Structure formats: structure tokens, C-alpha cells
């Protein structure tokens, strides 16, 4: 009797992550076809519509790029912390906190000139996001509180804070009692580049590029990565883990908060409950697909932006926009699976098929024997 086990390859297959990503995409689209057929839809027509709506002409590109902004910044917020081995699950809350602070600035600065107000709104976003990450950052660095759980819990708190603001203190008196915050002043909106694409696209790209350089090419980034791979080594090298942990988490919060400011002034125009429509959580997938490397975040974000915008467009065809949600999660699962297979190979070994065993472990036994 023989059975298949996973054996670690001596060297990962060439092509690596882009290949895994492509395989993930193919897997997701294939499962998507099955789902669409199951509900009696025409998958080809639907995928074509998604593609055209997201990437068909400059106008659709502009919408896709706008969507890629919060996804990319949220992905960066996760990846920066991830470079140091920290989990920032709080991008969703940090985006909301950024949007709240930015909306507060827009209320105060109504009379300021346009460029000043726009800048102040974006800075407000950064400050709001940083403040939201400050608690988890201090708790983690000073007393070792698990940042996964604190940042996660604060997402739900931030969401309720936004709800409270728009149901209460910030409710627009002219909204006929609907829970709506007032629109921000026209001169506080982000200038557009082409189509509907706004300046936020450039801001996000610059921020991502800066962090990519900082993490990959500077001493600061090197220390960060050392601390991420081994705390003991970092200590031995004289790197202050406490300080670095706190700074990195607060910076990550600021990056996500910037996305909140950009969303407010770029697309939403008012503070709403759905201003971060799961961008923070999608950002975690984006960062994971970019292998926690800031440099890879932008490309993944554009693809996810396209999937989301495409997903919105098929609602008019009577198809639930949740198709795009499903596709995003499936891309990740497909890519993880492909990523593992690029590091392992399936081999048949003699063995007792009745023993469920540990495939990875058994693989190594074989590896040692060969």
C-alpha cells in the first residue's frame, strides 16, 4: 500500500508568489463559475461585464484605482506591522478613526482655503488612525498584550463610535431625521486627476513607495526585519524592541487612517457607517498575498479593486455583489494552497492508509531516508 505525503522541496519552485497568485485567481474564477452556473447565471457574460466595468476604459480604470487606494493603504498598514512579525488586524477601525478625525477637521475648517483644508483633512486622517493604534501599540510594547485581539476588538468599537456620531452629535439637521452626517464642504474634496480618479491615488502610491524603500533599503527597515525574524537577535544587536513595536504599530495606524481621510474627501464626501466597507479586512488578504512586503501591496490592491468594482457592476444583471467577496477570499485560499505546493511536492510512500498521520512530519522522515 502506498499513500501520498507532502515532502518539502530543497528549493521552492521558481515563479514563487506571482505564480501562486495566478493559480489562486484561476482557482477562484473556476469555483466562481460553478457557483454562478448553480444559480442559473451565464458565467462568461458576468465575468466579461466585471472585466469591462473594472478595466474596460479609462473611466473604469479611474474607479478601480480609487478603490485600490484604501485597499492598498490598508494592506500597507498590515504589511508594515507584518514586516516586524506583528499582526495589525485593526486597519478597519483605524480607517474609521481616520475618517472620524478627518470629518472633525472638515467641520472645524469649513472656512479655510481649499488646499489648506484638503491637507488638514488628510493629516487628520493620519492622526486619527495613529491615535486608534496607540492603545494596542503601548499595551503590546509595555505589557505584552496580544495586538491581534486588541486591534480586532477596537474595530468593532470604532464602528460603533461612527454609528453614534452619525445618529447623534453629528447628525445632519437637514437630513430629515435620517442618520446622516453632513457633506464636507466642496472645497475640501480631493482634486481629480482623470475620470473619477482623485489625487489620493498619487498620495497612496507615494506612501507605499516610501515605506517599501524604508523597509527594504534602510537601516531602520533592516532592524525592523531582524526584529521580525528573531526578537533575541534584535535584542543582542541593541535594537529596542519596545520602542520599535510601538512606533511600527502607530505608523501602521496612521497609514490606515490616511485611507480613512482619503475616502472621506475623495469618494464618500460624508462620514458614513460603511465608509470603510471591509477595506481593513480585505487589506489583510492583500498584505498576505503580497507576503507582507510593502513593495508588493500596490499591485495586489489594484487587482482587488478591480474585483470589487467588477462585483458592484453585476448587480444590475441580477447577480449578488457578494460574488466579488467570495472571489477575494477564494483567491487567497487558492494562493495559499499553491504557495504550499511550490514549497512541497507530493510523493507516494509506502504506508498504512488507516493512519491519518501528520503529512508534513511523515514527509520529513522520508526526506531523511533519501
Amino acid at each position, binding site marked *: 500500500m502506498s499513500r501520498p505525503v507532502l515532502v518539502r522541496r530543497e528549493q521552492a519552485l521558481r515563479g514563487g508568489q506571482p505564480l501562486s497568485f495566478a493559480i489562486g485567481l484561476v482557482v477562484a474564477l473556476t469555483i466562481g463559475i460553478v457557483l454562478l452556473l448553480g444559480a442559473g447565471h451565464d458565467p462568461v457574460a458576468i465575468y466579461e461585464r466585471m472585466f469591462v466595468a473594472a478595466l474596460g476604459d479609462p473611466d473604469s480604470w479611474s474607479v478601480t484605482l480609487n478603490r485600490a487606494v484604501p485597499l492598498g493603504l490598508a494592506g500597507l498598514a498590515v504589511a508594515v506591522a507584518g514586516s516586524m512579525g506583528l499582526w495589525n488586524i485593526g486597519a478597519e477601525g483605524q480607517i474609521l478613526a481616520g475618517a472620524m478625525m478627518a470629518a472633525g477637521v472638515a467641520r472645524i475648517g469649513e472656512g479655510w482655503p481649499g488646499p489648506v483644508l484638503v491637507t488638514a483633512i488628510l493629516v487628520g486622517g493620519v492622526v486619527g488612525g495613529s491615535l486608534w493604534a496607540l492603545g494596542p501599540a503601548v*499595551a503590546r510594547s509595555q505589557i505584552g498584550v496580544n495586538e491581534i485581539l486588541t486591534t480586532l476588538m477596537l474595530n468593532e468599537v470604532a464602528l460603533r463610535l461612527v454609528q453614534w456620531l452619525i445618529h447623534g452629535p453629528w447628525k445632519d439637521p437637514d437630513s430629515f431625521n435620517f442618520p446622516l452626517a453632513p457633506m464636507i464642504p466642496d472645497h475640501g474634496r480631493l482634486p481629480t486627476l482623470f475620470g473619477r480618479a482623485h489625487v489620493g491615488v498619487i498620495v497612496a502610491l507615494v506612501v507605499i513607495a516610501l515605506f517599501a524603500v524604508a523597509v527594504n533599503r534602510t537601516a531602520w527597515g533592516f532592524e525592523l526585519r531582524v526584529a521580525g525574524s528573531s526578537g533575541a537577535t534584535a535584542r543582542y544587536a541593541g535594537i529596542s524592541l519596545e520602542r520599535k513595536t510601538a512606533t511600527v504599530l502607530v505608523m501602521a495606524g496612521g497609514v490606515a487612517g490616511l485611507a480613512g481621510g482619503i475616502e472621506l474627501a475623495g469618494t464618500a464626501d460624508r462620514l458614513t457607517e460603511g465608509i470603510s466597507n471591509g477595506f481593513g479586512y480585505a487589506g489583510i488578504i492583500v498584505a498576505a498575498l503580497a507576503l507582507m512586503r510593502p513593495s508588493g501591496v500596490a499591485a495586489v490592491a489594484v487587482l482587488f479593486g478591480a474585483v470589487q468594482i467588477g462585483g458592484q457592476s453585476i448587480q444590475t444583471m441580477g447577480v449578488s455583489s457578494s460574488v*466579488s467577496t467570495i472571489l477575494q*477570499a477564494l483567491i487567497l485560499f487558492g494562493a495559499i494552497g499553491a504557495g504550499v505546493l511550490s514549497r512541497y511536492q507530493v510523493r507516494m510512500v509506502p504506508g498504512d492508509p488507516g493512519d*491519518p498521520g501528520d503529512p508534513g512530519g511523515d514527509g520529513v522522515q522520508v*526526506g531523511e531516508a533519501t
Partner: protein
Amino acid sequence: MNEASLIGLCAATVSFGALLYLAALGEMVSEKAGILNLGVEGMMAMGAVTGFMTALEFGNPWLALAVAVMAGALTALLHGWFTVVLGAEQVVSGLSLTILGLGLAAYLGKNAVGRPPGAVLAPVDWPVLSDIRWLGPVLFQQSPMVYLSVLAGVVVWFVLSRTRTGLALRAAGESASTADAAGHSVVGLRLAAVAVGGGLAGASGAYLPLSLTPQWAEGITAGRGWIAVALVIFGAWKPGRVALGALLFGGTLALKTRLQTFGVDFSPILLSMLPYLLTIGVLVVISIRARNRPSPAPASLGIAYRREER
């Protein structure tokens, strides 16, 4: 505030408490074996949609519950396959599971929005007990799900702390290599724990459309999966304490819609932050105390086990 509304509040506290307890108990089993599953919200949504659809199709609430448990377990096993077998990051896989579950549930339930339920789990009428003043309406006129959640709690407590299987499962979560050396299959134990956790989350999800809010709506789980994750920490990974926490957090959910009835001038939205803030408080306390005594969290929680890297 009158007697009837106070009884209503207590009864709703127990109902919501049971809802949270089922999901939190499942998450606890999974974490006890060392697997953090942040997909609770997604598994609950899958349980809710499959339960509601089965009830629509077959009109049998018990069959609906069984299907929901299966759906929750199968959804969880996707996480299990990726994290236990392939050793993927548990945080990423779990959050993706939430996204996938919410998306699939919305997709599958699209045509069920607004339809009346095919079947509901009728409240149990206990002889004599149900008629007791106060206690009757609060404890003995509840949905069968409430009594099932108590039963599940007792079973989980017994298996975890009084059986060899439970010992092996906890060993897999505390020190996977020790469990492995003792001849247990870490992969098998962890997969089983993840599946049980998913089944309980599925049951919790089905509780919503089968009894608590008898209809299907996208987003029916409304973030309660996150409260379940919080509860496990709040209850320090102990079935009894998690139950107390479930009543406390269930109380905030029950109170949320009743604040105005009681004439309390406090925002229900702010009240609903309480579970998360309390949990953060508990996390801080655990960390401060961890300097002198071991943390209640399973030591291998969140860490993939690969025998070759032992």
C-alpha cells in the same frame, strides 16, 4: 420599569447569552487545541443561511439545525485544512473564512430575503417549571437552543477536563510536540477540534433564523461572531467562566433595544461597545498578571505544528 419588562429583559439575556455561548464554546474548543479561528462570523453566517434554507425547503427545524451544524463544521474544516495540514497563518486563513462565509451566505440566501421562515424551533414547555413566577418565563420557556447550549457546555467541560481525549486535545494546544511524542495525532486532534468548533458556530448561527429573529437577512450575524471570539478571552478559556461572560455580554445585547423602555437616557450604540472594551480590559489584566503566573491562553495557540521543525 415594570415587572413584565424586567422579565422580558432577563429572558432575552438568557436567549442572547445562549447564542453567544454556543459560538464561544466552539471557538474555545478550537483554541484549546491550539487553533485560533477568526472565522466565527463566517461560520455562523453559513449555519444561519443553510439552516434557514433547509427549513424553507423541508419545514423541519431539527433537520435545519443538523444541516447548519454540518455546514459550520465543513466551513471550519477549510480553515483546518489550510492551517493544520498546510500550516498556513491562522489569522489570515480565519479572517478569509469570515469574508468567504459572509459572501457565500449572502449569495446563497439572496432569494430568501424577506421570506417567512419554513419552520421555527418552538419554545419548550416544561411541566410545572414553566409556570413558576419569574423563573418560569426567564429559564423555562426558552427555545430548545438554550437548553442545547447548556448541554453543550457541560459536555465540552466534561470531555476537556475529565477524559483522555480532552487531555490529548489540550496537550495539542499547550505543547504540540509533547502531544506528538505521547503518540497522539496532533493533526487529527486539531482538525477534530476545529470541526467541533465550526459545528457549534453553525448551531449558533442557525439559532438566529430558526428562533431568535425568524427570517433571513444579509448580515444577520451582525458582528456577534466577534463577541464570541472576545468571550473566550473574557472567560479565560474555561467553559464555566465563558458561560458567565455570555450572560453578561448577552445582557448588553438584550438591554440595547430596551434602554428607552426603561427610561434610561444612554445611547444604546455606546452600550454595545461594552463587550469589546471589557475584553480589552481583561486582556490587559491577563498580561499584567502573566508576569507572576502563567497566562490562561493555550501556550501553542496560533502556532502551526510541523514535526520537522520540532
